[in-house]
């Protein structure tokens, strides 16, 4: 008797109906990230347009041009792929693609609800920040491989900006770790059942918000892709869908950072009502943070690079250290927090 090999169809069905695969492929994984990034592109354009007394995209739609970004997606996919003559083709193509993968990788760590969580790593917060740390390398690689002046300048600017704002980002999130006594994001949410961390960590939350906007390279910190100065910076040479990947990575990071802010400061999936509403609450808080960050774009102008670095390294770093001291005395003074 020969052992029959397992039925491939049965195996495939078993695999694609497993809970982990559904989470990885549908929500909060790949498919939902793609759709959310597309909707965020639309939301960004629409809100900015409203702030500037314009209408924004409106034709491709059942509702207010919401399908505009999907139309753009199809358009960009059918564009000709022009790669500059002297570019390093391998890294030129791979850098934005891996930037997108890295951005999407952040979502795996966010507990949208106790069940819809892909990876319950014990060191969730440092892993998230470590992924963020990798992205300036990819941006610099993208700028360098294009072998053109503006992308190179944009890549260098991105390196300075993201490294400069990284230490305040890390230090501001230390306050949360001190209060929760854990790196695990689910445990951080559980620790907030007595009160959201935004109250004892107000200073830290503000620093975290400012530095995370800088890490996402959004206005007012969009120096690496400043259109009037260095014509989209490191994205200047990207054609068609590679440009889409470079832009999409920014929106995926916006989603991930807003979700992280909602998780560590706004109590994540905690909220009134029965437990199955947890998913709704975390998405609701994430949406509020996303809209807040988009509104910043309408409210502020771009800062200069030397101002950016000076305030990042002196003001934000100093405030982050003060925040750690305040948190320490809070814990020593009121051990119940």
């Amino acid at each position, binding site marked *: 008797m020969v052992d029959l090999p397992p039925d491939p169809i049965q195996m495939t069905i078993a695999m694609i109906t497993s809970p*982990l695969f559904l989470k*990885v*492929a549908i929500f909060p*994984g*790949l498919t939902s990230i793609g759709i959310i990034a597309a909707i965020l592109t639309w939301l960004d354009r629409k809100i900015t347009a409203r702030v500037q007394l314009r209408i924004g995209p409106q034709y491709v739609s059942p509702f207010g041009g919401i399908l505009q970004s999907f139309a753009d997606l199809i358009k960009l*996919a059918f*564009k*000709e*792929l*022009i790669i*500059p*003559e*002297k570019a390093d083709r391998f890294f030129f*193509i791979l850098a934005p*693609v891996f930037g*997108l*993968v890295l951005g999407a*990788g952040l979502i*795996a*760590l966010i507990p949208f609800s106790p069940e819809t969580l*892909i*990876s319950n*790593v*014990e060191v969730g917060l*440092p892993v998230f920040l470590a992924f963020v*740390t990798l992205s300036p390398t990819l941006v610099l690689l993208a700028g360098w491989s*294009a*072998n*053109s*002046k*503006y992308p*190179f*300048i944009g890549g*260098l600017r991105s*390196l*300075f900006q993201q*490294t*400069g704002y*990284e*230490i305040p980002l*890390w*230090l501001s999130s*230390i*306050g949360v*770790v*001190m209060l929760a*006594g*854990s*790196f695990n994001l689910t445990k951080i949410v559980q620790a907030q059942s007595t009160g959201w961390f935004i109250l004892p960590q107000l200073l830290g939350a503000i620093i975290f918000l400012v530095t995370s906007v800088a890490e996402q390279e959004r206005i007012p910190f969009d120096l690496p892709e400043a259109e009037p100065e260095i*014509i989209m910076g490191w994205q200047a040479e990207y054609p068609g*869908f590679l440009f889409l990947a470079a832009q999409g990575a920014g929106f995926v990071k916006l989603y991930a950072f807003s979700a992280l802010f909602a998780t560590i400061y706004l109590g994540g999936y905690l909220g009134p009502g029965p437990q199955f509403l947890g998913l709704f609450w975390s998405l609701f808080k994430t949406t509020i943070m996303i809209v807040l960050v988009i509104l910043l774009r309408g409210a502020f102008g771009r800062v200069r690079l*030397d101002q950016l*670095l*000076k305030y990042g*390294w*002196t003001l934000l770093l100093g405030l982050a*250290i003060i925040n*750690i001291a305040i948190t*320490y005395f809070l*814990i020593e003074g009121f051990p119940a927090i």
Partner: protein
Amino acid sequence: MVAEGIPELVYYLGFITVNTLALVVILILLVSPRDKKPTPVKRAPFESGQIAVGRGRTRFIIQYYPYLLMFVVYDVVAMFLFAWAVNLRTLGAAGTIPVLVFVSVLLVPLGYALHLANRPENW
């Protein structure tokens, strides 16, 4: 459990990497039109319509270099503070005083380095 969640994370990262790369390869090979004989102008680096002068990877004065040097040192320091923060409640004063000494010893050179880095005449 320290290893909890890591297989799922690796599975997820592998899944999205494979899918994104497959999508990119499909787009490059099948969807995106290619110009068989592109003109030199088409493949020239973009410089706002000007004819590109000189090399793309030019010599570029990195004026803000001191900030990068500080990053190399103080990123590691931030990681040490994470290790202290997570054990804060169990360590108590015995664990906090060495950290205070450690941070204050490192903050003095940081202040001096910032003092030098923030002065434009030193760039």
